[in-house]
């Protein structure tokens, strides 16, 4: 269970990205975080694994306060949190296999990783995951040879090989076409289901979020505006999160697709 208590982040520039956010994510729940650009979605998930240092508040994962950990305890805690990035963030000049195995870096020593001598169990798991995301043939390709959708599948495999309890997913579909976006979202949600993973998925595409998750949280200017099931997202709620617009098209479209 992930629990955020009064989580606040104020950047050095004075921008308040998060204002005392309280949020609970039970084990195994997939949650979509929506909101306009600059609402603090990315900051929120980065505060969870402390790629961004929160200014105040607590992040409790399984009862442990992440915000108070020293650097080596933080590294151990990060192993429990897989992250999937916008624009994939694969190390482009490494092979697909190295990218996937990099998810095990927190578990192996420096020299083993330096010499690429990962334990056989890790290598086997990497092959299983690549097979699961449909990229077994690509193991020895360099990451920059893959298409966008393929790269994001590698990103997913890299996060899952950590064997995490929680997935932090930052705009996984931002640079993908609509069909690939759906495939990627479906894959992430299926894998969470298979492995009983909790996930926070930042996503711009409201319709896509409604299609795949059971719970949606809306943010605006660093504060939570909405927390509920996808069918409670009415034009009023969207106006509260994003501001005045004609929302009918967004929502009806989703209902048609769901049916």
């Amino acid at each position: 269970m992930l629990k955020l208590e009064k989580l606040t982040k104020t950047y050095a520039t004075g921008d308040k990205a998060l204002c005392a956010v309280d949020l609970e994510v039970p084990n195994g729940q997939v949650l979509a975080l929506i909101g306009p650009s600059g609402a603090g979605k990315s900051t929120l998930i980065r505060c969870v694994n402390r790629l961004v240092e929160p200014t105040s508040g607590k992040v409790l994962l399984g009862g442990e306060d992440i915000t108070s950990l020293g650097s080596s305890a933080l590294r151990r805690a990060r192993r429990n949190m897989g992250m999937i990035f916008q624009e994939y963030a694969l190390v482009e000049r490494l092979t697909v296999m190295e990218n996937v195995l990099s998810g095990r870096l927190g578990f192996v020593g420096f020299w083993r990783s330096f010499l690429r001598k990962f334990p056989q169990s890790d290598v086997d798991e990497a092959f299983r995951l690549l097979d699961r995301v449909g990229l077994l043939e690509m193991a020895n390709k360099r990451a920059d040879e893959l298409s966008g959708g393929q790269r994001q599948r590698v990103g997913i495999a890299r996060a899952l090989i950590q064997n995490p309890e929680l997935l932090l997913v930052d705009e996984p579909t931002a640079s993908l076409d609509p069909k690939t976006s759906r495939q990627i979202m479906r894959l992430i949600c299926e894998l969470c289901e298979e492995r009983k993973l909790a996930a926070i998925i930042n996503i711009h595409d409201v319709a896509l979020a409604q299609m795949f998750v059971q719970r949606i949280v809306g943010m605006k200017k660093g504060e939570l505006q909405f927390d509920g099931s996808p069918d409670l997202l009415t034009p009023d709620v969207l106006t509260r999160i994003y501001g005045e617009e004609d929302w009918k098209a967004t929502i009806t479209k989703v209902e048609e697709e769901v049916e």
Partner: protein
Amino acid sequence: MSSSTLEAKLGTQWRKPHFIKSPYTRYALIGGTIIYLVFAFNSIEVNWLRVSEGLVRGWRFISAFASPDFLSHGTDIRDGMIESVIMTVASTVVGILISIPIGLGAARNIAPLPIYLVCRTIVALSRALNEIIVAILMVAIFGFGPLAGFITLSFASIGFLSKLLAEDIEDLDRAQAEAIKATGSSWLQWINYGIQPQVMPRLIGLSMYRLDINFRESAVLGLVGAGGIGATLNTSFDRYEYDTAAAILLIIITTVMSLEYLSGIIRAKVQ
């Protein structure tokens, strides 16, 4: 913009705004530059009598290239070249090994402030002192010979490689490095997986370039007594043996050009 002003603007000329907006500042700067240049050129004295004598000497030097003499001091040239190559390779390797940690420390995005300042100071110190000046100091400390040249070139390589490596690290794609950090990797693993693959082509390219520079510098350092082919070259100048000097210069030029060609191939391979 309202339509009335649009109407007014249609059909009128458009000119790019001046880089320096105030006309006073602009004309003052242009005027000042012209006046400075006039005085500067007038202050350079040319002794035409001296030039006419010098042209004859210069011509003898250049015409020696038509008949370079590789043989009469063949062993000196060979020994000088061997010394230069040893100096070049050894100083480049040592330079690279030392500049990698300093380069990491001099990159603001990965190093904490105190380390950053120390490394930047080392870089600045190494770059502020010209090779010749360092070489004179080293010759004073270690005596004539290639050891002084080796230390000088290593020292100069550190400033060059660390600075450019640090700048490359500062420009790298943060997302890739962040993704590796998020896996719970240690600092060394993070450098090895998140940073190194991104800067490797540049590091290899720079190292090859530095090898090239160090070889050329080794020819110059001989002039102040730091050994290598430069010492041989200096001796031949002192004895007015322009044909031997021409032979040495031809060897240097050929070597530099082949190094350039080689580094081109290697850089294309590692992209």
